[in-house]
Structures are given as C-alpha cells and as structure tokens.
C-alpha cells in the first residue's frame, strides 16, 4: 500500500526534518507514527499527502510514485486519501453537511446520492441528525468526528490523521480511536501520527517511531 524508500527532507541545508526514512505499510494495516515534537511526524504526513516534496527518496502509494504525479493527478490522489487534522480544519461558515459534501458536490456527485452518503458517514461517527449545525456550535470531539465523516465520504483507501486527539480529552480521544479502528476494520489503511503513548498502548497496533527525522523503532 505505502512504500517509503530512503526518504529525506531538508528545509534548510544541513538540517534534516527527515533523514533516510524507509518503511512499508501493507494494505488494510493500522499503524501509529509516533515520536516527540519535532521528530518529523507531520513532515512525513505532508509528504504522504504530496503537500510537500521530498529532498530525496521515493514514496509509492498503491504502486504510484507521488513524485511523478502531475498537479491534477495529485489532487485526484488526495481525493482518495481521507485526511484528519489536529485542529479539525472545518469551514465555520458552512453547515456540517456542507463541510462534508462540498468537495464531492464539486466533483459532480448527484445531490441525492451525496446526501445519502453524508448522512451515512455522519451516522457512523455518531452525529446523525446534526447536518444543519455549524461547526462552532459543536464540541471539540464532535468537530473532530465531523472531520472524520468528511474523510469517510469518499470511502478512502488510506486514512491519514495528524495528531487527531491533540485537542481532545482522554475519553474523547478513545472515542476517536474507536472510530479509526472501525474504519480500519472495513479495509481502509490507517496511519495515525500521535505522541500519545497511552493511546498507542491501549490500541496495541503497529508503531513506527521517529526521532530527529530518523526511524528508530518499528514494532
């Protein structure tokens, strides 16, 4: 599913955000990416999303080298990846439904089909009936669940989450992780970047540890 070969990223000469990182994630795996702040977790996720280009090395997702994609192919690739951010990144002026439906609607998905899928996604994250709410009227946990529903609506083959529980209390964090586990159980590959060791221990999944841009441990 994901093959990372000798990946390096430098923002300044001599300072490596990532250095010679290699690993493989199989299709349908649930993997945690962990390490202290500044270890390179977010950089790696940005590279996996092709939001940035590596200084050297290759990332191959579903057999396609991200470096060789054109701009339109990158956008098409991103639509196959569900992305969840620490700060949710919802559009406050739009309703929950519009936040979920905006992109598929622009891609020409019929409204009736789209509504059915959005309602289903909201049901999966426990927010059925909240379509017309505005994000700012929701709690942090609910906003994160909306962002997960937004990621689910395209039925992604890969889900990337960057510190998805960073703004949530332990109970809500466990709820979010349960959602990821359920998504993973449907066959979606899940990669979650977090520095929350307790959460990682609780779920007992495979862990890739980064420190100072290097992979130090793969369990």
């Amino acid at each position: 599913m994901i093959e990372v070969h000798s990946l390096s990223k430098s923002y300044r000469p001599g300072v490596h955000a990532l250095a010679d990182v290699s690993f493989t994630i199989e299709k349908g795996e649930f993997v945690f990416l962990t390490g202290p702040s500044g270890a390179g977790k977010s950089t790696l996720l940005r590279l996996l999303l092709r939001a940035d280009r590596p200084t050297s090395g290759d990332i191959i997702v579903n057999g396609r080298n991200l470096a060789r994609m054109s701009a339109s192919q990158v956008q098409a690739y991103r639509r196959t990846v569900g992305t969840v951010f620490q700060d949710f990144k919802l559009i406050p002026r739009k309703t929950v439904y519009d936040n979920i439906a905006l992109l598929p609607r622009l891609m020409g998905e019929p409204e009736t089909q789209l509504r059915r899928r959005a309602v289903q996604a909201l049901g999966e994250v426990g927010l059925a009936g909240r379509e017309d709410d505005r994000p700012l009227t929701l709690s942090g946990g609910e906003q994160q669940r909306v962002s997960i529903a937004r990621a689910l609506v395209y039925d992604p083959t890969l889900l990337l989450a960057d510190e998805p529980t960073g703004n949530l209390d332990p109970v809500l964090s466990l709820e979010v992780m349960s959602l990821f586990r359920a998504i993973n159980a449907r066959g979606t590959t899940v990669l979650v970047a977090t520095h929350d060791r307790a959460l990682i221990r609780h779920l007992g999944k495979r862990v890739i540890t980064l420190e100072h841009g290097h992979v130090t441990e793969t369990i």
Partner: protein
Amino acid sequence: MIALLRYSLGEASLSLARGWRSGLLAIAIIAAAVFIAGAVLMVSINVDRILERLAATAELTIYLKPGDGERDRTAVGALLGSHPAVTSSNFVGADAALARFKRELPDLAALVGTLDENPLPSAFDVRLRDGASDADTRSLVQALQQTGAVEDVRYDRRIFDRLSDGLRILRQGGFILAAIIVLSAIVTITSVLRLAYLQRRDETAVLFLLGMPPSAIRGPFVVEGMLQTLAGALVAVLLLWAAFGAVNAQVGPEISQAFGTGAAVFLSSGLVAALIVASVLVGALAGLVAAWKEP
C-alpha cells in the same frame, strides 16, 4: 461544470456581500475607467464625423471677379480640370451662392435681403487630391491668379490639417489617460481580490489539501472579479448615456448646425457590448492573477 459554476457564483456573491466596501471601491474605480475610455471613444467618433464632414466640403474656394463672363469661368474651369492637384471642382453661381448662404446662415438671411443687389460672387469649390503638397496648392493658386479672372482664393486645407492634428493629439492624450486609469483599475481590482483570497487562505488551503481542483479554488475569485467589472461597466455605460444626453441637449444643436453633421451619436451597441465584455474579461483575469498562487 454546473456545480463548479454554482459554487463559484455562490462564494463570489458571499464574498462581495462580506467585503462590500472594498467591492464598491473596486466597482467605482472600474466605472470611472470605463466611463473615461467610453467618453474618449465617443468624443473621438463624433470628432471624426466632423472631420469627415469638413474634409468633404470644399478645401479651396475660388471667388471670381464680379461680372465675370462665361469665358473667364470656362478658363478657370479648364485650368482646374487639368491641374494634377485637383480631384474635383464645382461651379457655384452667384445666385446659388446666395441661396446657400441663406440656407446655412438663416439668421443673416434677412440682412442680405435688405441689399439691392447680390453681394456674393460666383465661385468654384475645389477638392484637392489626397496628399497634395503645399507647393502643389501654391502653384495652382498662382496659375489661377494669372488668369486675371480670380478675385480671391480661400484655402481651408491648412486649417483643417491643423485642426485634425490638434484633435489627434487630444485623442491620443485621452486614450493614454484612459489606459492609465484602466491600469489602475486592474491593479485595484486585483488587490481587492487578492485581499479576499488571503482572507480565505486557511479555508482554501484545507480544501486544496483535501483534493479540491485548482479551478474550484480560483473559480470564486474569477467570478467575483467578473461580477465587479460587470457592475462597474454597466454603471459606466449608464453614466455615459446620461452625460451624453445632457451635453447633447446643451451644445448638440449648435455643433450640428455649425458643421452640418446631424445629431451627435452615442456609442454603437457593438461598442457598448465590446466595452462591457472587455471589462468582464479584465475582471476574470484579475481574479485569476489574484488566486493564481496555490494556497
């Protein structure tokens, strides 16, 4: 495509409603630019009509001595017919000259009517060949005077040329002024749209990361630019129409009578459409430039 258009229109309308002050400023500047460009164009068209009319009238008028005979008229006519600087000539007898005077200057017709005899001489109206030089004209005048049948020669061409040159300079100045204002309007609208783009940068950055196509990112700003310039151009055309009506009511009849050009004309519908379309295209371009850089 329809979804993209609907989304762009919706987002552009929202953005215009949110930033209505800067939007109004942009519309006002665009309206000023289009108004000046349109006004220069309109004045230019009407001045061209006057110049064409002047060019069509006699450039050289040869007044024959009073009591001229048929022989003198034939001699002058023959000279004009054979001279290379002459395109055409038309004999206007004293009676015809008087009738024309009364027709063209009705206020003075009564005054002439009080005289015992017709004070106007017979004359030839002469049109010169395009490109005839001053030397050609001087040689013609000299030859005419040597016939002894000519009382006076009035030469309009030089005045016409100077008038034409002066108006050309004025017109060029007007177009340069219009171009400067159009340029400043483009800069203003691009800045206004760029500001709107930056205000929504967080939002567009997320949508871009989620895979939104660049056309959908830029679409709302392109449409916003088009809406602003469309509004500005429509305001300008309405103002032009009002200004044209007011000025025409004040001085139109005098100009028409003085030059015999008929009523002044407003911009043709084709030109109005071209002004509006050009403005809207400029708006689209400004929106594209403002949102060109990926978030």
